[in-house]
């Protein structure tokens, strides 16, 4: 039955439940989550005021909001405002993310196509992966200076391994039956690669990209902590030095927005590319026989 039929029958007598109310009934969390957030902010505001917590320990949400507006109202190239620093940090994140995850993906893909190469390198890759690469940040700043390059290198280093490891795992996890089918059809290695291996590895690769997006923000901030002239990390450092907690918290908000933005873009791409994975993960496993 189509929606128009229902409308024709019911409109004269009483109102049909609106689309919004149906949505709310099906997914109550879309109402509960924002209400919870508002309650949390109000509770925070009041408790800070009532308990007389000094602003340099914990600011109220309204102070943070004021600081955020002030920072955003500054000029595009104002060193005291947020736009310049956000721009610097964001470009470092994007450059490092693309370079690091791209290199990891390409290398992982190439290595996974050669079994001996993969087997030989695996032990070293695992060893390097378990190193805390963030500890290299001071050395990298020393090598590449206080500018953009050192941050991009740190971020690239951090995002390289998630992609390397997940693409190796993804290309290894190709279903054997699919490969056998392709072999029975007489498919060459190139055809098998594009028609089976790449689609099979994509869910793993997207998991790697998601990890890498988080690491890239961490890398940018840590890199800027270690040594930089511009960027949100330097802003946090100078604000905490001046006991400007509201300012520091407002920078956190900008960093979260960057994080949420990257996550949403990745998710949107993933939904288009991997529309089939949800169902596959929940599908019943085929019985043995």
């Amino acid at each position: 039955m189509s929606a128009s039929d229902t409308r024709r029958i019911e409109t004269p007598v009483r109102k049909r439940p609106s689309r919004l109310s149906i949505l709310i009934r099906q997914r109550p969390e879309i109402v509960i989550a924002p209400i919870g957030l508002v309650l949390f902010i109000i509770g925070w505001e009041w408790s800070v005021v009532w308990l007389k917590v000094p602003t340099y320990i914990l600011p109220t949400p309204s102070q943070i909001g004021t600081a955020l507006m002030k920072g955003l109202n500054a000029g595009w190239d104002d060193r005291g405002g947020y736009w310049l620093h956000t721009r610097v940090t964001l470009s470092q994140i994007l450059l490092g993310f693309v370079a690091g995850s791209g290199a990891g993906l390409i290398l992982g893909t190439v290595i996974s196509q050669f079994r001996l190469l993969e087997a030989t390198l695996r032990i070293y890759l695992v060893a390097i992966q378990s190193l805390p690469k963030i500890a290299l940040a001071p050395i990298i700043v020393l090598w590449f200076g206080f500018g953009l390059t050192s941050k991009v290198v740190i971020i690239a280093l951090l995002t390289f391994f998630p992609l390397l490891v997940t693409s190796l795992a993804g290309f290894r996890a190709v279903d054997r039956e699919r490969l056998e089918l392709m072999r029975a059809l007489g498919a060459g290695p190139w055809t098998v690669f594009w028609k089976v291996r790449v689609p099979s590895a994509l869910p793993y690769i997207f998991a790697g990209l998601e990890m890498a997006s988080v690491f890239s923000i961490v890398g940018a901030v840590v890199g800027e902590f270690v040594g930089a002239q511009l960027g949100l990390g330097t802003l946090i450092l100078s604000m905490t030095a001046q006991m400007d907690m509201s300012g520091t918290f407002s920078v956190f908000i900008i960093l979260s927005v960057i994080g949420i933005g990257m996550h949403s873009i990745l998710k949107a791409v993933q939904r288009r590319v991997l529309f089939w994975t949800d169902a596959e993960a929940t599908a019943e496993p085929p019985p043995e026989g």
Partner: protein
Amino acid sequence: MPAIGRIKDTMEAPPIIRIDHVDKIFTTVAQEKIQALSDISLSIADGEFVTIVGPSGCGKSTLLKILAGLQRATSGVVELDGTPVSAPRRDIGIVFQNPVLFPWRTILENVLLPAEVQGRPMAAARARARELLAMVGLADFEKKYPMELSGGMQQRAAITRALVNDPRILLMDEPFGALDAMTREQMNLELQRIWGESRKTVVLITHSIPEAVFLADRVIVLSARPGRIARIIKVDIPRPRSMAVLSDPAFARVCGEIRKLLYGVEDEAGAAGGGLS
């Protein structure tokens, strides 16, 4: 016993498949040798429906993979249409126990995969795929994704995929083993109909004795490892066969004979009636 006859390798029509003294020995990592198949000789006529039954691990699947060119016999010769099989061939369609449909492709795209891989003209292949999908009752599902279809429908799509390049030979490795009993009976009727319409040579492996007898012109009974041909049983029940055949005394007699070969005893209760699974 007119319904059951042991026949020799000589068939009326020239064989499309000739298996001559095939052995298959696997070597494990520990260098142990395991004999999977022993001295298999068999000829299959063009258009014939042959089923292979045998206990688990008797090498049924290995034999099918050798026919498909996916594995090589350790010794002996396998010829299709007079030429030895050494690699996968284009005139063979293969159906596995699982549908093995790619979840990122629609049903039509899945069915077209063999045509795509083998670089056939796509317009003609698409027309043929639609025709076949209509034949198996999936005409309205060509734009759906595999996950939106039931197990039986997925397996029908897999059979369609095997038929899209019009192979002369259809190899099926327990194609209905993962389906429930009712779907399985339907699929058996449908396969009989498809075979009747397309006149392919079909080699089907199953662990269900009634299914083997229901579908076959001849049932090849393999013994336990190493798999060797215990007996070849001709099924003379006229076609098209309906599910009523299941309670036919001749049908029960053939099933009973196979059971006796496989288990050593004739299971009277199980021989008559029952489903195909």
